[in-house]
């Protein structure tokens, strides 16, 4: 049984009397100890996905379809109390601004104690010290206040806090964005080690495909609330089949070839809107045909991984053409 099984997850937000679709039939599964990367830009729904799994959606959001099963527990049929119990013990959450969510007037050890008490454990000191060792922090920082630590150190404290109860699932939403390069590397190495040593399953959400390539064995590319490509990271990055993934790859700098001309995809990523029966990338896609504008492409298995594109059979040809920047320039 997979650690996490998400099927056809669909989430809408209500704004006034309009409802917009943030997630559209998202499905994937995560095994124990596996690291899944979720790649996308603003408005693709990746943060909504994280919150939906953790059942932390805001009041005006609603899961109107689909299911999420964590280690056998059906998350959308669980009551509020069971969800509260599951959070932190079965699934932990680390976000970009988490380092700012530490209580500025409480010592760090106190925050561990408080979290521990909330879940029925009174003495977490030795566990906290062990976790600090794990994340590479000196135990003396336990007695400090958050502002005495740098951003990178605080982020590591957050990760330690998240691992307090050895949750089998860790969801990290842009945990390294905004951190210095060397600190980011440290955090990534840490996550890799944790996965290896504790067997924690990780969902790593980011816009940075380099970071995901370094950490995750499988990846899902999201666009406009849908998963448009999914498979092993090696496969998806080396042989992308969705034009958006091809574009992302070309738009992303690579230190090994620092002078390669980056492309930019004309237009902007769509904001959540009412559901349409069409490919949401068609407006920006250099290869779009009529069918793309009139029918939403289903996610299907082609050549080793899954892709949602009507024209996926011609992926090899598209890949060749995608490398030249001129193809991505569209007349305004």
């Amino acid at each position, binding site marked *: 049984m997979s650690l996490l099984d998400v099927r056809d997850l669909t989430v809408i937000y209500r704004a006034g009397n309009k409802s917009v679709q943030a997630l559209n039939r998202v499905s994937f599964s995560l095994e124990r100890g596996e690291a899944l990367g979720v790649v996308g*830009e*603003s408005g693709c729904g990746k943060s909504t996905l994280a919150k939906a799994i953790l059942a932390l959606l805001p009041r005006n959001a609603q899961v109107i379809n689909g299911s999420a099963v964590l280690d056998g527990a059906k998350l959308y049929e669980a009551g509020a109390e069971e969800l509260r119990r599951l959070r932190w013990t079965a699934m932990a959450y680390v976000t970009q601004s988490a380092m700012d969510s530490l209580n500025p007037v409480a010592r760090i050890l106190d925050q561990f104690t408080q979290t521990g008490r909330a879940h029925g454990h009174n003495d977490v000191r030795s566990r906290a010290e062990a976790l600090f060792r794990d994340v*590479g922090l000196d135990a003396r920082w336990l007695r400090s206040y958050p502002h*005495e630590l*740098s*951003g*990178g*150190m605080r982020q590591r404290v957050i990760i330690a806090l998240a691992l307090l109860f050895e949750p089998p699932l860790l969801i990290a939403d842009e945990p390294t964005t905004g951190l*210095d*390069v*060397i*600190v*980011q*590397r*440290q955090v*990534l*190495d840490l996550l890799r080690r944790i996965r290896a040593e504790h067997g924690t399953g990780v969902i790593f959400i980011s*816009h*940075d*495909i*380099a*970071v995901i*390539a*370094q950490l995750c064995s499988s990846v899902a590319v999201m666009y406009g609330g849908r998963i448009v490509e999914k498979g*092993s*990271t*090696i496969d998806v*990055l*080396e042989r992308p089949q969705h034009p958006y993934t091809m*574009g*992302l*790859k070309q*738009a*992303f*700098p*690579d*230190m*090994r070839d*620092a*002078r*390669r*001309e*980056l*492309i*930019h*995809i*004309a237009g*902007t*990523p769509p904001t959540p809107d009412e559901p349409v029966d069409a490919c949401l990338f068609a407006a920006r896609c250099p290869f779009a045909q009529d069918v793309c504008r009139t029918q939403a492409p289903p996610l299907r298995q082609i050549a080793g991984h899954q892709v949602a594109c009507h024209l996926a059979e011609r992926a090899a040809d598209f890949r060749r053409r995608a490398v030249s920047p001129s193809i991505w320039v569209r007349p*305004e």
Partner: protein
Amino acid sequence: MIENGNMPVIEFTKVCKTYRGHRGMGELIPGAKAASEVRALDDISFRLEKGRVLGLVGESGSGKSTLANVLVGLEPPSSGQMLFQGTDLATLRKANKRAFHGQVQMIFQDPYASLNPRFTVRQTVEEPLIIHRYPRQDRTRLVIDALERSELRPASAFIDKYPHEMSGGQRQRVAIARAIVLGPSVLVADEPVSMLDVSVRAGILRLLRSLIDRLGMALIFITHDLSLIGQICDDLMILYRGKVAEFGPAIAILDHPRHPYTQQLMAAVPVPDARSRPAELPARLMNSLAVVDEGPKCSFEPRCIYAVDICRSVVPAARSIDKTEVACHRAQELKKSATSKEI
């Protein structure tokens, strides 16, 4: 001012900026010493020529934001000389503050926060013109011109919009239009694309490059993301704790970084390659000391794997190695022993 193709637009010589910590009530006691002193910028020297892009890379605490502020006149330097087209900046500012402001402009990181949410695009871009008393009939033409140069075409479609009605990329273009409307000689871009979606970043970078080329400006491109340097930068300056670690042509440094800090920075940048596992960074690099003892030594020494005794007792001066200036005692010696694989 005589246009001299080789005269640097900006020349910094040993510029320093020191911040004094709060002294509280001690402020009232004359002669009381500051509780803490931070050398945000220490002996910064460089030159920037017309039509060139200088990349400025540094992590938090490196002083790059301070350097930006000093460059654009938001803060005065504590010491050192800043020449702007041959004239001392301080004198220029005193004499003709407005003219100076018209020559150096800045583009900020957050495209949302850098536009006044209650101003339309027109008001935002027109504001510098109003301040500098351009006549009304010229203003509209200049605003439209600036918007179209920033690839917001047709300008009429954007001119009455509010920031919240536009995407991040569009807002950044408005910010660029505002920055170029006065025809400045120098643009300072502080992380201009780090808050934008990946798929639109290259467009903004290319726009900046083409503006530099077409309008003959100079650009200082500040970032912590090394992987963007190769896109538009001619020269590169690596800052560490307020000092210049390495300075030279961007390609030369990217291909052969000489300063140990630069080497580690580059090694730490993740590459989008799912097959290779990068080598672990050296443990010594992870030494993060809250306070570094000031005093004559190399500030990178506590984290440097090549540190030897001299690094602890003498501040490394910049020395030329090939076309680059490197502030490291052992740079020459390390170069000789470096094989291409080590980097």
